[in-house]
């Protein structure tokens, strides 16, 4: 049984370095989403806001600038998964009958901390490590297990950079075709991952309006499932590490079951790609491609907008950018845009079903399925 809720409107700011205050970013994205939905803020029954670093009470300030309507406003934090966690809460607010329309907003400034913003103090020595390190370990093992070199990672990263060139809201928009050699020759961050294989920390905001019933241009949210990391003896959880692939698999199974869909139904995908290796690991964990076939799929261009399994065709965290609390909503917006057929030069061929997956540090995972 599906949720009987729809994504009625979407909006986001350009991603990149911004001098705008978080309030301004959040209001801009929310206003764009409301306009896209054809709704006034007074028609919104609940608001859910996601950020990791925002000063306290930012959610209320954003909502109050949109209108002092007295509706519940809830701030939440779930690292990189926060945006989709907010979307899930908005969907459940509508599905439960509490309201007919709800708003999910994500905003973040990472290039310069908002005055009053929250910087987590390291609790353990591992919290001081760059978050890319555990992806470097995982990527090293992945390459070993698949009998290939970092060239396959470079091909996937180049795909994302070149897709971002077609996305006017992306943070990293190359003015030339990025080649795998260029990706490989970039500065090494943590072996085997170069800077061009790792996410771009940026500023930005994104918002989604969830409504009961279909509206012009709306996209049905078939399912949205969330989990926290369960025990996996092969996955240490020291420092800012996301949950294991087994958690993604478990969450996706629940989402497919809820949606009454199967992996082969999926036409367009957005996954969390803090580093490029995560894209490959995740599409296997989601059941979208067999592990034995994933290298050939990637090298053969299968993940590009015109490929057989288009993934992160907005540039992903690598090139669209990764303003943590807003990222999940930006991912959902890209899939909605694709399902509407409005993605322009990066449009995927006639997609009907899309999948969005986010994973956050600390072990939160969300998988959503959407249908045109």
């Amino acid at each position, binding site marked *: 049984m599906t949720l009987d809720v729809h994504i009625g409107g979407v909006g986001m700011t350009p991603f990149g370095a911004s001098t705008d205050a978080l309030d301004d970013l959040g209001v801009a994205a929310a206003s764009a989403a409301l306009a896209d939905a054809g709704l006034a803020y007074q028609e919104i029954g609940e608001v859910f806001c996601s950020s990791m670093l925002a000063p306290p009470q930012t959610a209320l300030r954003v909502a109050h600038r949109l209108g002092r309507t007295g509706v519940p406003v809830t701030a939440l934090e779930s690292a990189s998964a926060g945006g989709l966690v907010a979307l899930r809460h908005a969907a459940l607010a509508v599905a439960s009958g509490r309201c007919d329309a709800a708003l999910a907003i994500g905003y973040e400034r990472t290039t310069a901390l908002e005055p009053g913003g929250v910087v987590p103090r390291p609790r353990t020595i591992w919290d001081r490590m760059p978050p890319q390190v555990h992806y470097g370990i995982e990527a090293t093992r992945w390459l070993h297990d698949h009998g290939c070199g970092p060239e396959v990672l470079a091909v996937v990263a180049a795909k994302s950079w070149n897709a971002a060139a077609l996305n006017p809201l992306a943070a990293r928009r190359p003015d030339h075709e990025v080649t795998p050699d260029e990706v490989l020759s970039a500065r090494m961050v943590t072996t085997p991952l170069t800077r061009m294989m790792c996410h771009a920390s940026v500023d930005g905001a994104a918002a989604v309006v969830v409504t009961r019933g279909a509206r012009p241009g709306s996209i049905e949210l078939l399912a949205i499932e969330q989990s926290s990391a369960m025990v996996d003896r092969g996955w240490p959880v*020291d420092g800012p590490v996301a949950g294991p692939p087994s958690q993604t698999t478990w969450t996706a199974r629940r989402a497919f079951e809820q949606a009454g869909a199967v992996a082969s139904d999926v036409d367009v995908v957005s996954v969390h790609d803090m580093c490029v290796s995560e894209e490959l690991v995740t599409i296997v964990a989601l059941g979208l491609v067999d592990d034995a076939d994933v290298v050939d799929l990637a090298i053969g261009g299968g993940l590009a907008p015109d490929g057989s399994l288009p993934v992160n065709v907005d540039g992903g965290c690598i090139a669209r950018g990764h303003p943590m609390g807003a990222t999940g909503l930006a991912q959902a917006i890209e899939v909605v845009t694709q399902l509407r057929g409005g993605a322009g030069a990066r449009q995927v061929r006639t997609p009907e079903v899309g999948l969005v997956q986010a994973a956050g540090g600390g072990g939160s995972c969300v998988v959503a399925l959407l249908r045109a």
Partner: protein
Amino acid sequence: MEASVWAATWVPSPSPFPGFGADGYAVAWVDPRDGARRQVLVAGDAAPSIGTTGTVELQLLGDGDDRSEVPMFVAGAGGEVGR
């Protein structure tokens, strides 16, 4: 504690750990003979190859109040290393 390397990475920038890896450092996930996989720093100036065996020892890093006990992997004799 004896362990083998599941995988490791080399970070070619100064370590955030006081008194360790000023020119870069390696971090590994290792499989102890008994118990779950765990994350460790690696002694030396290179990342150990997958399957390298050695021991995990607790070492104190840092000074004064900024002092922490950290699990450190030390490759055994003949263990392969390489960036």
